[in-house]
């Protein structure tokens, strides 16, 4: 009896130890993560805003209202407004076909979708210079027909589309695969057409996933530097996006304006994060309801 009692207390003790020690470790880990985040994310973000407002709010606004800055903002918005919807359509179509159908070359298609993630953005930009540049394959023909792609808005949009290509598809493929095709098959059996099945069954199931992909896609489309830098030509007031404009201002010793414009991207990041966590929360509650 006595022996058994000792045993139980020992067991209790050891189990308590098991609880307390990891707790300490856990706190340490959390603290380390927070310190790391603070140092590498929050401090730089705060620095951007404090630099931007160094000469007061007037100077901050003036930097944003300057014609070249406005042109850069406009170009960035146009680029995102074109590339994000296109990648949305592409992403849904490819995720749909990959998740719901079996066909030869399916895994090859998945690899292809991932390609932009594995290629350096500079190379992505150079691809377009090689294709559409004056010395490139299509260059002379394009010039003869007075079509400008590279060093103009179309080139910037193309490069952005390439870089942001995988975001929506990558988000949807695992989601649609985990959902399986039971519901779609049921709909078909009950007499729904392909389009009806898509609109009424598939789309409602993946809408939050789509939104999540679109948010990430948009953030990258607006913030892309490397690929766009290669194809832009850096003509101020016409082919500079926000990130390129920031670099130019910085190189002109115009630090307040550079950080003022950079703060727009900072705000975009914050909005993206908030929207992203909202969507994540929605996805969880939707799953919980089910």
């Amino acid at each position, binding site marked *: 009896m006595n022996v058994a009692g000792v045993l139980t207390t020992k067991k209790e003790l050891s189990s308590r130890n098991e609880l307390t020690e990891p707790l300490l470790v856990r706190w340490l880990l959390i603290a380390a993560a927070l310190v790391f985040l603070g140092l590498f994310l929050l401090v730089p973000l705060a620095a951007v805003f404090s630099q931007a407002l160094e000469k007061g709010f007037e100077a901050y606004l003036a930097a944003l209202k300057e014609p070249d800055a406005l042109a850069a903002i406009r170009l960035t918005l146009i680029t995102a407004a074109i590339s994000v919807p296109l990648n949305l359509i592409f992403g849904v179509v490819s995720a749909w076909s990959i998740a719901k159908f079996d066909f030869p070359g399916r895994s090859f298609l998945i690899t292809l979708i991932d390609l932009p993630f594995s290629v350096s953005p500079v190379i992505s930009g150079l691809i377009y*210079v090689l294709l*559409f*540049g*004056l*010395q*490139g394959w299509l*260059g002379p023909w394009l*010039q003869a027909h007075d079509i*400008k792609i*590279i*060093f103009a808005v179309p080139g910037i949009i193309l490069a952005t589309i390439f870089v942001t290509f995988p975001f929506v598809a990558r988000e949807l493929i695992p989601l649609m695969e985990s959902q399986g095709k039971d519901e779609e098959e049921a709909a078909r059996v009950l007499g729904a057409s392909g389009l009806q099945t898509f609109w009424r069954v598939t789309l409602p199931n993946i809408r939050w996933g789509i939104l999540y992909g679109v948010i990430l896609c948009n953030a990258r489309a607006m913030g892309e530097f490397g690929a766009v830098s290669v194809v832009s*030509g*850096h*003509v*101020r*007031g*016409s082919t500079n996006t926000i990130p390129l404009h920031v670099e*130019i201002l*910085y*190189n*002109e*010793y115009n630090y307040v304006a550079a950080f003022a414009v950079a703060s727009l991207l900072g705000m975009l990041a914050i909005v993206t994060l908030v929207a992203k966590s909202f969507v994540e929360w929605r996805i969880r509650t939707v799953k919980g309801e089910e």
Partner: protein
Amino acid sequence: MKTLIGKALLVAALATSIPLTAFAQVNLLNVSYDPTRELYQDFNSAFAKQWKKQAREDVTIKQSHGGSGKQARAVIDGLDADVVTLALAYDIDEIHDRAKLIPQAWQKRLPHNSSPYTSTIVFLVRKGNPKKIKDWSDLVKPGVSVITPNPKTSGGARWNYLAAWGYALKQKGGNEAQAKEFVRKLFKNVPVLDSGARGSTTTFVQRGLGDVLLAWENEAFLAVNELGKDKFEIVVPSVSILAEPPVTVIDKVVDRKGTRKVAEAYLKYLYTPEGQEIAARHYYRPRDKKVAAKYGKIFPKVKLLTIDQQFGGWRKAQKVHFADGGIFDQIYAK
């Protein structure tokens, strides 16, 4: 829905009709190298005023800046430059060689080798000159950190390199082998090669790297004036190089766009007393004797080597020193 479409069409119609009612308007694109940003900002507005008086036409000049070699590459790849104003003749030669956008003898078309202003290479050091850097020979001493951009992409960097080479040649008993060794030692002291002159200036000035920056004279003056006379000093070496940044219209582009007249007037305006004044105010050495005399006090007298006499012209210098497998590749790889 219908009214919405109607409204949209109306807006579209209005938007497209605006350019028709605007004044006669020409656009020029000047593709330039890094340190000329401030110069052309001023010059462009002066020329726009002049052109309005002269031709009753509104001209908007857009600018693109970057490392000189990189900018030439962009023009070769189809960036629609009406004029290029680059750091050295070889980059413009490339535009002829690789894309045939200009005639081979482009440099004969304007006075002074088509270079309306000149510059040279000087040293920018931290206030008080803590490492006691006085001349090129101080740059190869151990423990001296030198900032210069990459000669492969930057025009300024190639002038830097050649100025150092020229200095070594001019020393007592100097020869090619010694010059090569000297430049090799110098580049051993370079911790980072930026792609353009402006990038290097930012590295030195803003990031605080290095003891001495090899810079365009105008870039050095700008850094001192913009960022504080209390932080930096300019050191003028005993020998430097006469840098001639040339300009030209891009014939194929201006003929296609129909902008030849205004593009040529733009470049010629650089040679007028007003244009020369603007250049001098931005610390480029003017060609015009009168303007040069007026601003003579600013520019220190230096013994200047020329690319033609010392190196047999840019084509040769490029081939020997900066082409793939050239001397720069040999000394920098080791």
